[in-house]
């Protein structure tokens, strides 16, 4: 389970769900905007951390691909 700690928040991500997407971008595109706003604005999770969560979910190291840049 990927967990991110931020201040008073501790967030666990559903890896089984996230890894059903082909890429981090596809996952984040599918998420409702309000969830992304919640993670970023209320908790303070960055885009890079979300992509890291995706990478952990699919079991591979984060690769800064040309596409992600």
């Amino acid at each position, binding site marked *: *389970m990927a*967990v991110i700690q931020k201040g*008073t*928040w*501790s*967030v*666990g*991500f*559903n*890896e*089984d*769900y*996230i890894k059903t997407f082909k890429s981090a971008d596809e996952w984040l595109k*599918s*998420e*409702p905007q*309000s*969830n992304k706003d*919640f*993670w970023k604005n209320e*908790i303070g999770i960055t885009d890079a951390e979300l992509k890291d969560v995706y990478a952990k979910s699919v079991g591979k190291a984060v690769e800064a691909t040309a596409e992600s840049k």
Partner: protein
Amino acid sequence: MTPTNIYNFNNAVAPLNTGPMSVFYELGTIYKVIFIPKGKMFTNTEMLTPYATLDALCKNNTIALRAFPIGDFIDFQDKSTAEVTATTGYGYMQYITDGKPVWEFIWDQGGMSFEKVMKSFQGLQNSYDLLVIDRDANVILGTDPATATYALKGFSLEMIYSTLIKTNNAKEKTRHSTIIALKDAKELVERHVAIQLDPTQYPVYNLQGLYNFELSLVPSSFTTTSAKLKITTGDKHLDLYDLYSAALVTATASIWSAVTDSTGVTLSVSTIAANSATKAMTLTFGTSTAAGATVTVTPPTVSALTAAGLPGYAGAPIQITAV
């Protein structure tokens, strides 16, 4: 043609021998009882490890298949009904029928919260059978299923109800009691099965029920894509946030489920976020729900909660409405 499905009503049972018994079973203090699903029969194989079998039954993920130990009793009143006899016109006494075992169990542990639990079993005599925990002899007492494959079943029940509480009178603590009537005295007297366990390894009074794990929605917090929940024990008497939020966050969010009631569509739970400032858990859903729609959120199963670090808890689903 030979008729089928005709029972043999011959009651000419041979008397049993009457040699003095140096080793015998006598019912001791009933410390607990266990409601088991109606008709549940324990196989011979299951009864090779009776404690483990019952313990697993008490923790079954499916509530309809679960057993519910009740106790610890602090007092007991035998309210059994008398046998029925009659006197004929010529003055001959006749035995008509057995009395019914009716037991009143008095308890105080759990107080008003457990009163609510016990009330939930009232009238469910057709849904459960009963096993008796005899603490003195460390025995599980039930009745004989009368088949070769099975070793034990529970007593059939005729009535379950809880009496009105006896309120604290400054001399005695508030008392609660539950009355249980068995359906058939023969199951207890003539067909009882007493399974004795080694008390040093398997003290049967240690069999206990699950704690209620209760979800409640922070008012108006279900905003079509996320919902903020408080997690408490039953009756909301103990906030479980400090004890278990970390375990729930670490456990995979996939062990939660959320289904839109009107469509049956499952909403994937993408994250569980715990906030120590509000002591609430926020679930985010991978897809939006229409405002006004009702969603049933089901917490992890008993085994998933145990794996997540919350052993001994069972949660009930909660319906929440999107605003």
